[in-house]
């Protein structure tokens, strides 16, 4: 992975107090994924996983404020307890719909804890990339927080 991230890439590294095999199961087994997928205030009532290279997954998260949100993709690489690569696309209408992204997750276990490195980048053609406004970097996080705050204040 290059040292510099493009604007439209996302890299999130986190250490979890669990072995890599358990983290891997959290990503690959529906009964586990149901319990954690989705931001705060969401539930994940639907998960279907065909866990093999070339196999598809599809899931839905929902919240009272944002309704049902489907997403899915295809597994590209599976290295048990070490590495997982899959495509990820939102089904919903709107600007984020239909933008296929590639997610790569690696797991590195050290002393019972596991460092999970999550990387997501879009598959955009050049035209789409050029018209893509801004990125997913920290400026956008601030904008997201700002927009959420104002949307919340005015829906109260």
């Amino acid at each position, binding site marked *: 992975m290059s040292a510099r991230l493009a604007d439209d890439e996302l890299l*999130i590294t986190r250490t979890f107090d669990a072995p890599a095999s358990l983290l891997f199961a959290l990503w690959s087994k529906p009964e586990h994924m149901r319990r954690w997928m989705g931001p705060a205030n969401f539930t994940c009532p639907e998960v279907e996983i065909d866990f093999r290279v070339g196999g598809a997954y599809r899931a839905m998260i929902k919240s009272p404020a944002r309704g049902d949100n489907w997403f899915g993709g295809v597994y590209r690489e599976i290295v048990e307890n070490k590495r997982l690569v899959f495509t990820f696309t939102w089904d919903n209408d709107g600007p*984020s719909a239909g933008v296929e992204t590639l997610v790569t997750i690696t797991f590195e276990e050290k002393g019972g804890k596991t460092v999970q490195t*999550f990387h997501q980048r879009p598959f955009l053609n050049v035209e789409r990339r050029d018209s893509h406004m*801004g990125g997913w970097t920290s400026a956008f996080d601030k904008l997201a927080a700002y927009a959420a705050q104002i949307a919340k204040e005015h829906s109260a």
Partner: protein
Amino acid sequence: MPDTLSVTLSALADPTRRAILARLAKGEATVNEIAKPFDISLPAVSRHLKVLETAGLISRGREAQWRPCRLEPRALKRVDDWLWRYRRFWTESFDRMDAYLAELKAKEKRK
């Protein structure tokens, strides 16, 4: 022709315009009231307001002299609906993953 979201985002890509929106989040205001805290001319403020209005981020009253501006939250909601699917979606999912792992560990201990 740029799509609605692009128009909204380029309107938001300016610190003065975001400050104006923050001011209007507290309630409607006239051009003079909006201009007060800024070190810029009234015509410059009016130009910013025009951009915000075109982007659907604010609306203005009809009276020619007294045209109070108010925030239109719908356009910001569209931005929010687009953004939450990126970083926030994953970081908050990983928070829940952390909590779920703690729950599994506690269950394991009870056995």
